[in-house]
């Protein structure tokens, strides 16, 4: 069974204080690892997809990295508008029948609060 664990559950930062969020996973073959941002009352907003160990992707103050067992979301010099819940999810490969249904298994999320 695929499992995703995110830590910490909550993180409070001062504006400009860089930090990292962790996503540890176990999956029977990784097809992709996804990062989302979710604001209260809204649907998850796509950030990144990572496919293989060593891969990195960046968007503004965010940088996602991937190893064989975990992914990190690095936040550099965060601003209050970066406050949100950050979700990590893994996607398993196609099933034996060949119909790729792309199920995502999500972690519980990390609630990030950035104070001015």
């Amino acid at each position: 069974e695929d499992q995703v664990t995110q830590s910490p559950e909550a993180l409070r930062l001062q504006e400009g204080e860089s930090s990292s969020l962790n996503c540890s996973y176990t999956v029977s073959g990784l097809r992709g690892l996804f990062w989302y941002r979710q604001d209260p009352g809204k649907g998850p907003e796509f950030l990144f997809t990572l496919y293989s160990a060593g891969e990195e992707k960046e968007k503004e103050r965010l940088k996602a990295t991937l190893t064989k067992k975990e992914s990190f979301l690095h936040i550099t010099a965060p601003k209050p508008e970066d406050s949100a819940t950050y979700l990590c999810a893994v996607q398993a490969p196609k099933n034996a029948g060949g119909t790729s249904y792309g199920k995502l298994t999500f972690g519980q999320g990390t609630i990030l609060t950035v104070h001015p």
Partner: protein
Amino acid sequence: DAGITQSPRHKVTETGTPVTLRCHQTENHRYMYWYRQDPGHGLRLIHYSYGVKDTDKGEVSDGYSVSRSKTEDFLLTLESATSSQTSVYFCAISAWRGTQETQYFGPGTRLLVL
């Protein structure tokens, strides 16, 4: 944004009442998904569809059924709503943007079963 809308956005219903939630997409994507999000459980897959009239169960499908008679619409039905189905329901589609595959989510439907 993948042109996903959900209706209704909020609903209050009573135990035992049938409820249908609608997901509509405008970009002709093949794969569509229904998830529910609950505190302590995160997002969990209920049902998914890989084409018109092609659907299958996810990990929390008991008490739910789905239908997809048109590419653009994916319906989730609670045959007889229970309080345990109080949740936020999200529809998603799978799409490629350049070299990245991802799932884009709709705005969600908040359902309260009394």
